[in-house]
């Protein structure tokens, strides 16, 4: 540790100074960590939803293949479906999914994963209709989004 010496005394007093030369290195490391692990969320959250809990969950690894479909409650407490940034009706879902698939330009062995963020109080009638539309549009790989508990 470099000390600064005060001149003028026979006995040199040294003030220990912490070297801050490595501080930028630490900060850069933290910065790179955040740059690598985080994503910029481009979708607005238009609906309110609370996910149900489950213990046997899997983390989706290929994040760029994930497309979100949110089924929640709008400000007027109506059940609504949001895809990308728009609220749509169930009948429009097929065409939106096909549009998303075409925009994705995937290689043949990659498949889009649709993450369904459904509020826990939504009736199964709605969920069933949703999955039926997904099957119609041949979007078969889905993930029911849940929060994790340790049962």
């Amino acid at each position, binding site marked *: 540790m470099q000390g600064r010496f005060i001149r003028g005394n026979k006995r040199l007093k040294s003030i220990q100074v912490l070297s*801050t*030369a490595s*501080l*930028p290195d630490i*900060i*850069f490391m*933290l*910065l790179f960590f*955040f*740059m690598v*692990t*985080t*994503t*910029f*969320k481009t979708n607005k959250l238009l609906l309110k939803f609370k996910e*149900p*809990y*489950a*213990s*046997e*969950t*899997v*983390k*989706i690894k290929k*994040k760029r293949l*994930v497309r*979100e479909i949110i089924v929640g409650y709008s400000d007027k407490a109506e059940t609504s479906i949001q895809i990308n940034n728009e609220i749509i009706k169930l009948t429009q879902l097929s065409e939106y999914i096909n549009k998303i698939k075409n925009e994705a330009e995937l290689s043949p062995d990659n498949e889009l994963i649709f*993450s*369904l963020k*459904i*509020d*826990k*109080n*939504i*009736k*199964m*009638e709605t*969920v*069933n209709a949703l*999955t*039926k539309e*997904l*099957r*119609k549009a*041949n*979007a*078969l*790989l*889905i*993930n*029911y*989004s*849940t*929060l*994790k508990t340790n*049962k």
Partner: protein
Amino acid sequence: MRREQPQINAGSIADIAFLLLIFFLVTATMDYSKGIMRRLQPLNDTIKKNISEVQKRNVLTIFIDNKNNLIIDKRKVKPSEINALIKDFIANPTENKEKSSKIFLSTRKNQELFNKNTEAANEIQRAIDILGNIKTSEGIILLKYDKASNFETYIKVQDIIITAFKELREAMAMQILNKHIDKLNQEQMLALKTAIPVNIAEPDNN
């Protein structure tokens, strides 16, 4: 005369880095999706046919009614009971004729070859190589629900079913491979999943 070397003032690098870091902290999210992966059935009639072909003893029906009660065999069950019911149904240690039947992996492989599913047959062959020609269950879980039941209950049941199958696989790993399930390599894990597949059928609940 000693010339002082010109130095770049490095004090501001830390400031710049701090600013960039704070920018990222504020704008970016560590957003990842966690949940239950499922592959939906394609929309055609072959699945409906298959359900009716399965023997009654090989189907365990779990029904969610409109008050979110779980009903098995016409009686209401508590979520905690379902785990034991599923494990008993699939494992069927006493070879009870009311519970699921078991067939050898080799028989399953021949069935797949008969249906020209060579990939599935190869997977079963790899399972035979790793686990031996064991008897595995033909049972499936049929999940039915009333239109007015909650999504929360549906997920809870899915969770219970997956947990039960996971415990069945853990037991098999301990029994046959003598290892804890977390210590298996990828091939062994795949063989285990082929031997005890999580078969959940959901009929078109119209």
